[in-house]
């Protein structure tokens, strides 16, 4: 049974149809990479799964939580899927620990002491236990992104969505973030990630989705997609002939 079921999803911004009927099923524990040119709709698709964009047609169901645009359904959906952003989006007025604690206390009404224990555990998991009291501005980009991952993990989601999480990082900081993601994947976390890290996609992902002009153009195991691209569009995207 699939954990995330995306069925015939269509999304328009005005006259511009960005998603033209997307269907993808993600099984528990799967790591799916979404690749494609900018404007192909990959980020929009990810944002739809988290309810940050509404959809015009089709359905998205995550572990039984149907995406409907009202507060109750959105909350149920977002408790199941965490999201990590390109720009980290840490809360600048809170320490790393505070960032990880906040939503536990506000949304789940976890007592402060328990939230702090979870925060310390999650920061430790991303290798930043010693930065509990640091403000976001005192952290490097890679560290900020790892705090963002810890913050999403603290809500105990059953899947994580990663929206180009290494694209805003200096090259030497990419590895530390990918290492954390790789570890999560090894622990069995379901991941859907929009990424430009082709080598990472090839090494870690169980499936690769190539999106082109709002459609799933090719989908398959990384060996197939990267080694035997069937369509000229994917061949061009990968830069192979």
């Amino acid at each position, binding site marked *: 049974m699939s954990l995330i079921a995306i069925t015939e999803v269509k999304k328009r911004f005005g006259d511009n149809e960005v998603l033209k009927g997307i269907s993808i099923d993600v099984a528990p524990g799967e790591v799916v990479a979404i690749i494609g040119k900018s404007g192909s709709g990959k980020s929009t698709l990810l944002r739809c799964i988290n309810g940050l964009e509404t959809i015009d047609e089709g359905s998205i169901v995550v572990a039984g939580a149907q995406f409907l645009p009202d507060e109750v359904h959105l*909350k149920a959906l977002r*408790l199941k899927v965490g*999201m990590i952003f390109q720009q980290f989006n840490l*809360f*600048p*007025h809170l320490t790393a620990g505070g960032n990880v604690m906040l939503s536990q206390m*506000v949304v789940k009404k976890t007592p402060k002491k328990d939230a702090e224990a979870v925060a310390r555990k999650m920061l430790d998991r991303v290798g930043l236990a010693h930065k509990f009291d640091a*403000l976001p*501005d005192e952290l490097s980009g890679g560290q900020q992104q790892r705090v963002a991952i810890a913050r999403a993990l603290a809500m105990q989601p059953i899947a994580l969505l990663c929206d180009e999480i290494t694209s805003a990082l200096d090259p030497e900081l990419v590895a530390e973030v990918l290492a954390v993601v790789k570890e999560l994947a090894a622990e069995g976390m379901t991941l859907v990630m929009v990424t430009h890290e082709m080598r990472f996609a090839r090494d870690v992902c169980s499936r690769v989705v190539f999106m082109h002009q709002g459609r799933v153009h090719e989908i398959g195991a990384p060996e197939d997609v990267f080694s035997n691209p069937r369509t000229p569009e994917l061949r061009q995207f990968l830069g192979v002939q």
Partner: protein
Amino acid sequence: MTYQFDFSWLIGSLPVLLKGIRITAQLILIGAVFGVALGIACAWVRALGPKWLKPVVATYVELIRNTPFLIQLFFIFFGLPSLGIRMSELTAANLAMIVNLGAYSCEIIRAGIQATPRGQFEAGASLAMTPFQAFWHVVLVPALQRIWPALSSQIVIVMLGSAVVSQIAAEDLTFAANFIQSRNFRAFETYIVSTLIYLALAILLRQLLAGLGGMLFPRKASR
């Protein structure tokens, strides 16, 4: 010039002056706390609140920002009793200052909210916060930090503007100065003393607000 300066009245008038200072301080304390609270509520409505409430708040804000403070004060103290709403001079003065600062601070705070990067709201939402929770816990403090200097100035302006409440016989510092001057006929001395007291109060208030800002906002957070 043969004018002889005389400050000997100062000792005898000290109790009146001190009472005036107390009332002015009290007015600005209550005015600032409730005025800014009202401003935050109105800013939330204008930036993120329910559609039906927006025109109500917009009308209030424009009404206050485009009419003189003295007229607002007169309306509350002399006008409202016609509708059976009566209050003491001090209550009327407090209310006028809260209503006035509420409108101005609404617009200042709204600017701070609207300068928030969209990613902050989205991060809150993706963590399953409701829009209001995201506003309250995520957006508000950095928004206030952004506009704190402007808000502090507005609070000082309201404190200085509170001098006009003497017009409805609220016994503030200006009322005290007028009272003393009408007894000793030492206009120059009386008003230079009250001027210096206002100056000291304004500097003190700015220091307090800067200190409060230092407590509320972490040093390095600047986004």
